């Protein structure tokens, strides 16, 4: 596919970014995405720093929550908004802290247009094994094993923020968990609605900033909370 044609097709793909207090990296992350994607929807989840002002200057669609609700609620808002856009074909979720690669998002976007699957999950462990810290890798593997056991899915990475979904699939999902546990609920819903899915390898950059923001080992405990939620949702 030539570059021009690809860019034209990607016009129907929307990038959904939940964001909370990311003034340090937001300009860099959005600018990099704007080189490839023309439709970027950022949900500012009640930021108290300059993120909102910076976003308004960047020329992307900004949806502002008056108060901080959580990553799940922000994603759901983005999904609801994109679902109302007539020519929207797919959504790619992307973290605002700069840990994802734009190239990976582009690959996922191109693939979701062509493939028959409804959802593509990004995976750090599919293909070449990523440079994930040892303890985090163990926790992620454990979480993945349990999640697969409960949902009957076959995923290698259940907690990756980079994923692509067709809008037709998004309309079927009913996410009502506001916090991080929405990831588990999303997987549960994909399983429940028998949506077709596959995985694609993605890279995660563990920068000093992203580790400080939310990739610390302590935050991995949230994943354990996710598993408890999965049992509850069954």
């Amino acid at each position, binding site marked *: 596919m030539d570059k021009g044609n690809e860019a034209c097709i990607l016009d129907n793909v929307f990038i959904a970014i939940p964001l909370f207090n990311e003034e340090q990296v937001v300009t860099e992350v959005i600018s990099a995405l704007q080189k490839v994607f023309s439709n970027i929807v950022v949900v500012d989840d009640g930021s108290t720093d300059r993120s909102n002002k910076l976003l308004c200057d960047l020329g992307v669609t900004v949806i502002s*929550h008056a*108060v901080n609700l959580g990553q799940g*609620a922000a994603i*759901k808002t983005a999904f*609801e*908004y994109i679902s*109302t856009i007539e020519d929207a074909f797919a959504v790619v979720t992307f973290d605002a802290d700069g840990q994802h690669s734009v190239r990976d998002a582009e690959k996922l976007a191109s693939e979701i247009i062509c493939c028959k699957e409804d959802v593509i999950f990004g995976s750090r462990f599919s293909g070449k094994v990523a440079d994930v810290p040892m303890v985090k890798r163990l926790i992620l593997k454990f979480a993945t094993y349990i999640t697969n056991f409960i949902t009957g899915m076959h995923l290698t990475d259940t907690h990756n923020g980079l994923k692509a979904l067709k809008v037709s699939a998004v309309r079927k999902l009913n996410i009502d968990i*506001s916090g991080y546990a929405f990831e588990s609920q999303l997987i549960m819903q994909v399983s429940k609605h028998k949506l077709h899915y596959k995985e694609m390898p993605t890279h995660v950059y563990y920068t000093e900033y992203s580790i400080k923001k939310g990739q610390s080992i302590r935050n991995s405990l949230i994943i354990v909370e996710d598993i408890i939620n999965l049992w509850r949702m069954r």
Partner: protein
Amino acid sequence: MTLKLIFIFLFLFLLLYSLIRPFPSIVSKLFLMIGSILGLLSVTEFRRVDYFASMLGINGGKDLYLYISFVTIFLFIFYAADRFKALEKKITKLTRSLALESVKKTRTDEDS
């Protein structure tokens, strides 16, 4: 004796209050009514409470009240958590609809 009288008046007032005041749910009414009766009994008829407790196989009235308190606290926490969750959902829905309304308005303004 004065303290005992104060407690008797307090529980009688609560009992009367629970009978007169209109409550949104019967559970709240019963909660205050039973609570005030139990309080009144604990001050005036503790021997009978002791007797009743021993009939139930509990060591004494104090233990019975302790168990009732524990159950009440747990029920209250459960009820409060449930209410909190419902409230959180309402706030989320409201915040989201306001945010979406605002962005749609901006989009319409830009289009026109």
